[in-house]
């Protein structure tokens, strides 16, 4: 069957997997993993240029922009003010209004600062950005972000880079049920089954970086994640069977050999 495309603001995607560019062993492995993932959008961070070698090759040179959109992030920002400035710099540097809004509240857990995220989201929507905010798995915060005009909401499955999988599937399911904008599970997916579990909850897409980049074989893991996302999506659309406590035989219970003729 053909699935509906994923629509985020004015952008359409066939792939429901968004990947990152961080932590790869080399740019060549990253390129191969991107190709294997089938992703059509890739995140990048924004940092000061090295003034000792400013004209060398940059990350963007290793991204196939004919196939993938760039999703710059505001990672590393701890205030709405810094996140807003970073978003504006990203738009000027990369020519995209897409922004993954990330305002961190705590350096150890990398949990988002909800208050600062809401302040920045409001400003960036007003400034014409297509805002995709990273947020806790909090249905109320997601609702607020949607009301502010964000193009999607991106609750975490587990802390960034933890690979713990979907820690609170019930919250994610509630967020999806309440949201009118796409729900993209961002952060915490560690392996292909985690990806499938997240997609089976009905979310619209997944964003992951470390789950692929920190695998022993990132290219093979990218392929596995792609399959996991697709399997989970199909299972969601198919509608799973009801769970039951006791067995229910799949084979007929009549006509068994040695039984009395009926």
């Amino acid at each position: 069957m053909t699935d509906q495309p994923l629509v985020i603001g004015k952008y359409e995607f066939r792939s429901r997997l968004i990947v990152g560019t961080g932590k790869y062993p080399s740019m060549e492995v990253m390129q191969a993993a991107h190709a294997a993932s089938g992703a059509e959008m890739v995140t990048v961070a924004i940092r000061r240029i090295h003034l000792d070698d400013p004209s060398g090759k940059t990350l963007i040179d290793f991204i196939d922009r004919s196939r993938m959109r760039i999703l710059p992030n505001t990672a590393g920002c701890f205030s709405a003010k810094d996140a807003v400035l970073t978003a504006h710099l990203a738009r000027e540097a990369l020519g995209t209004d897409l922004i993954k809004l990330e305002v961190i509240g705590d350096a150890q857990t990398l949990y988002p600062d909800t208050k600062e995220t809401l302040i920045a989201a409001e400003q960036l929507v007003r400034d014409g950005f297509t805002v995709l905010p990273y947020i806790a798995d909090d249905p109320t915060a997601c609702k607020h972000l949607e009301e502010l005009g964000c193009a999607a909401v991106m609750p975490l499955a587990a802390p960034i880079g933890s690979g713990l999988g979907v820690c609170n599937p019930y919250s994610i399911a509630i967020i999806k049920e309440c949201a009118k904008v796409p729900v993209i599970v961002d952060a915490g997916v560690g392996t292909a089954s985690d990806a499938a579990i997240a997609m089976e909850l009905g979310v619209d897409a997944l964003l992951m970086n470390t789950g692929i980049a920190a695998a022993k074989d990132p290219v093979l893991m990218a392929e596995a994640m792609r399959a996991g996302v697709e399997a989970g999506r199909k299972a969601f659309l198919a509608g799973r069977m009801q769970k039951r406590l006791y067995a229910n035989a799949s084979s007929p219970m009549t006509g068994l050999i040695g039984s009395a003729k009926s």
Partner: protein
Amino acid sequence: MKATINGEPREIGSDATLASVLAELNVPEKGTAVAVNDRVVVKAEYGAYRLGDGDRVEIIVAVAGG
């Protein structure tokens, strides 16, 4: 006069524009962006943008991240 560029204090000419400073630092236009005192300056304005003493200039580029 002095400006702080990416956190480092640097001596710049009294008639320095953003365009002249970026050219001197060999910063490519493609893929980069600049903020002066926390405000983004669009590329079209680099030539006319005169820097002042004590200005804080941030020059950024996309790097690997998730």
